[in-house]
């Protein structure tokens, strides 16, 4: 029921119990500060089980991002949608092992393509804490524009970053770059709104 997505360097797959140590290391560290942490190991388990369980409850959710070659866990990326949120969010959290190699963007593009192409969604947001400058830079690289501030129930004041709508150039991805931006723009460019 949880689909597996594959990109050039990554596998987006169902979270497993043997990924938990990596997730707990992240959630108990200062790296988790922009996303509601740091937490205890017990709290990290609750968080991890909640990620897995959203797939059962909603049929979509967040994948464990693993190194395609080694299957080592690198982070959590996908479609996060608690009950009291106005719309689903494209969210990314990288473990220390996943840092600094463009992995969040590669995984987030695959997740966004799944939302648009497979689920048929027409829009997506990402919530970014004001202090999380690297995530903000990633949102902008993905073409997001600001929808303004939002008082987030779990992490306080955040920026709502709205992703570009699916049609045309954003519809298909290959290797993480929008088709229209490759090969001198050989793909059709019509219909991209901004």
């Amino acid at each position, binding site marked *: 029921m949880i689909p597996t997505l594959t990109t050039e360097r990554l596998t987006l797959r169902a979270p497993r119990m043997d990924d938990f140590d990596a997730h707990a290391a992240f959630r108990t560290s200062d790296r988790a500060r922009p996303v509601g942490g740091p937490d205890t190991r017990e709290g990290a388990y*609750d968080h991890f*089980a909640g990620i897995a369980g959203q797939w059962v409850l909603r049929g979509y959710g967040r994948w464990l991002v693993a190194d395609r070659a080694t299957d080592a866990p690198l982070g959590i990326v996908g479609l996060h949608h608690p009950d009291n949120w106005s719309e689903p969010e494209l969210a990314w959290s990288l473990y220390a092992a996943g840092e600094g190699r463009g992995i969040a963007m590669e995984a987030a593009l695959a997740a966004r393509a799944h939302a648009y192409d497979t689920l048929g969604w027409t829009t997506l947001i990402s919530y970014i804490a004001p202090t999380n400058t690297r995530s903000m830079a990633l949102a902008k690289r993905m073409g997001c524009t600001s929808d303004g501030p939002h008082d987030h129930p779990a992490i306080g004041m955040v920026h709502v970053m709205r992703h570009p709508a699916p049609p045309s150039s954003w519809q298909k991805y290959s290797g993480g770059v929008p088709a229209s931006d490759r090969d001198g723009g050989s793909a059709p460019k019509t219909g991209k709104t901004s």
Partner: protein
Amino acid sequence: MIAIPTLTTDRLTLRAPHIDDFDALAAFYASPRASFVGGPLTAELSWRVLAQEAGHWLLRGFGRWVVEHRASGAPIGIVGLWFPAGFPEHELGWDLFEGHEGQGYATEAAHAARSYAYDMLGWTTLISLVADGNDASTRVARRLGARPDGRFTYERFGDMAVWRHPAPSEVAA
């Protein structure tokens, strides 16, 4: 993902957690009845609890069922096999929602869950953790034939009594 099995007893169905169970679960966790299991909780945290219940099945291959009253179809509690990070061993747990206590439902559902653990999963022992002062739960543990077996402290629920269930050979008919 694994298929979550459905169990049936005289009066109850034990089935997979579902998004439609959220209101009943949130009402339980907002009530004083949840004080023995980490509550009261906000709706936001109740959502996470429901997702955790479902996610436990994915991560562990077993978990807790939503207990549905067969005659009415109403969700009346959560019962089953629980083993989060930090637990000493597999637990048989039961939470009954408001208005459904005192009719033997927890015992009936827990009995079915214990049989599943012993007969289908091949487990040889089980504990239940009961908070001090939770007299109704203590009575369920006794009715199931469990005996006191020390204490355990869990971050979310505090210090609790450990009840050891009879082994499969002792509950066999």
